[in-house]
């Protein structure tokens, strides 16, 4: 009985170790695929980055008040902004992020024309979008980053 239990334990540990090493190797592959880019880089040639995992950072100018389902970061020029939406294990963005410099890791996405039309239609149907904000253009843009991880960084 004890011998059987020991064998089960050894088998379990072997499987666990194998999984850990597999996870590590996946992680290292993913890290290699991440492209570090500025907001301007992404917007200059969006097609080049579409579907790719990118690392992008900037000051958070606004977090959506209705559930934190999007936030915006501004480029170093102080004007160009990009929309970040939560993905992976991120449920929402907290309002506390506003005014913080944040480094995001995520997938850059470019919407097709039909999706873009739907997005703009949805945007224009919301009363609170009646007044143009500095992030309005980024909010209805056909590109965004779906964040899978983020970290506040010191300004």
């Amino acid at each position, binding site marked *: 009985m004890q011998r059987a239990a020991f064998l089960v334990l050894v088998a379990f540990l072997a499987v666990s170790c194998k999984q850990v090493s597999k996870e590590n190797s996946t992680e290292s592959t993913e890290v290699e695929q991440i492209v570090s880019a500025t907001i301007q880089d992404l917007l200059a040639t969006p097609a080049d980055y579409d579907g790719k995992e990118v690392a992008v950072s900037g*000051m958070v*100018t606004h977090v959506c*008040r*209705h*559930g934190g389902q999007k936030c915006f970061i*501004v480029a170093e020029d*102080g004007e160009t902004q990009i929309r970040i939406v939560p993905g992976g294990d991120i*449920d929402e963005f907290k*309002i*506390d992020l*506003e*005014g*913080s*410099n944040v480094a995001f890791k995520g997938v850059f996405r470019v919407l097709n024309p039909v999706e873009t039309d739907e997005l703009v239609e949805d945007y224009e149907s*919301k*009363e*609170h979008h009646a007044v143009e*904000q*500095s992030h309005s253009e980024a909010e209805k843009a056909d590109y965004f980053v779906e964040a899978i991880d983020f970290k506040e960084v010191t*300004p």
Partner: protein
Amino acid sequence: MNWRKWNRWIHRELGFLFFGMTIVYGVSGIALNHHVTRDWNPGIITRSTFAQYPDRIEKSAVDRSTIESILEITGEKENYKQYYFPSDELLMIYLKGGHITLDLPTGRIQITKIRNRPVFQELNYLHYNKPKKLWTWFSDLYAFGLVLIAISGLFLVKGRKGITGRGGVLTILGVLLPLLFLAIYLWL
């Protein structure tokens, strides 16, 4: 024990057990309704106060000392994070727990403080299944319990006021009303 006694037992015991959960989902459900219609934000409390900057100021003239002077006026020196210009006429200073906006042409300062709304924040956290993990199973159990409470409730009373009488009419009405709303807002 006949089936009616079992039925009453299920209804009573589950009713007691899930009282707390019903309050959680009921209260946060009202909050969620009004959150969706965007007339109220249950998650946060926003308060604004106003002040006046003594001079007109141009965007190009704003520097660190301008920021410090605004922070001095508003008493928010300790909470300063960063600033930026949403437009040529607006300066925004981010604070821990809010922000300050200065309308450059008029010098009008708006101090907005934002904090989490107590109680609702916690209730919504549970309603939206943010904890995930074991909470998912417990809330599933509650949902199943709620179905049992509803079904057992139909058979609590016998006779004229029961399911074969007035109770049945009310039950049919309760099923028809959501269908009516669906017909008005979705199907037609």
